[in-house]
């Protein structure tokens, strides 16, 4: 498993976390290239369907990021995200998928260093878990 490179899908909220990622770049912060970012208008736009599809299509982990509670551009979007991800994590567990493969983080546009730190942490965690193999089990 030494040469396993995890694939991680990161959903970035347009107003905070994407800015955070931008700042990480401007500050020349170092973080692994295993993360594939997808910009969404709000973290609550990320439906459990998107996460499921990411897993089925080959992601080993999914990270959802948004504004800190109270800072949401749409007032209560991230409160919905908290509930959605929590409910969905339980569902994933019932399906036999490690709940560590999904993570929710708050990253503001001033937290470039946090962005880099979270990406590194997540990559290391998934590397330890190993690949998520969803290939069909045969009869």
């Amino acid at each position, binding site marked *: 498993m030494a040469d396993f490179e995890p694939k991680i899908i990161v959903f970035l909220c347009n107003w905070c976390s994407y800015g955070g990622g931008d700042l990480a770049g401007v500050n020349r912060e170092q973080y692994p290239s295993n993360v594939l970012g997808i910009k969404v208008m709000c973290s609550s736009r990320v439906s459990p*369907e998107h996460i499921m*599809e990411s*897993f089925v299509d080959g992601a080993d982990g999914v990270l959802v990021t948004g504004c800190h509670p109270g800072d949401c551009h749409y007032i209560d979007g991230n409160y919905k995200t908290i*509930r959605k991800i929590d409910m969905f994590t339980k569902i994933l567990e019932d399906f036999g998928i490690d709940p560590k493969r999904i993570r929710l983080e708050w990253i503001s546009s001033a937290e470039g260093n946090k962005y880099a730190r979270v990406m590194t942490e997540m990559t290391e965690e998934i590397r330890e878990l190993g690949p998520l193999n969803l290939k069909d089990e045969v009869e």
Partner: protein
Amino acid sequence: MSDKLKIGFYWCAACGGCEISVLDIDEMILDVVELADIVFWPCAMDPKYEDLRAMEDGSIDVIFINGSIRSTENEEMVKLLREKSKKVVAYGSCSSIGGLFGLGNLYSKEELLEYGYNTPSTEEGGVIPAENSKVPEGELHLPPLLHHVRSLDEIIEVDIYLPGCPPLPNQLKEGLPLILEGKVGKYDLVSQKSVCDECPLEREEKKIPRLYPIQEMMLDPERCILDQGVLCMGPATAGMCEAPCPSVGHPCIGCNGPVRGVKDQGARMASALASVLGVEGEERMEESEIIDVVKSVRDPTGSFYRFSLPKSYLRYKRRDIHG
């Protein structure tokens, strides 16, 4: 006689409700018989599998298959029926979206057999039926279970989907003649509207602070059931049933499956529910307090995927969690 259509019905892993629902159309069954001859119907007639094998390929015009695919026998039979039929209709939720039996996919086949045959509830514990057994009269063969429950379209090509548990008379009265005349497309009988769209109950725009088990509630028959704090699958379930359950004060359980074009009913419901749950004054709360609301959702997987698990994204329990 010869210019009449030839139709058939077959059941796989099913409860038998779909077979009975065919008779729910009352006197309209006479119109159906006027249009078509029923040539194969194990539930009502006594055809042998050999009779079916002896038929010419494509000699049945429309075959209605209900039930999910649970054993190798189901798999074999539907493959045979596909060869013998021009059109295959996935009749009912089990064959079109996997059905109630699909919840068995949250356990392995071995766990299910163990639970079924080796728990204190069974009288002679520990005896799991063997695939082949010898009796004085000869050798008996029992078709083994498949690794997981499947929907019909995972095994063979399906021409028309007709969900419902079972399909209701109003769906049939509209759908059957169209199917027999060949006037419906693959997904035409799956509604694009949700049950909420058809539900007569009054919905207010408000947050739901907590969900309650239905037996703890005295429901107001005029107001939205979800609004009153009882889990109702209406938002994520395809309509066309005209919301018979909420109309009489019972929450929707999601039997029609997802609306047309949606793949995963459970994920949709989780998304919908997370948006309406909540308490006033969340802004001043800790994250852990916000999550508290979610704890009142009992068994999200079992409730959201009650009928559609084998056709969701993940389909059955994976082995990612070790130890």
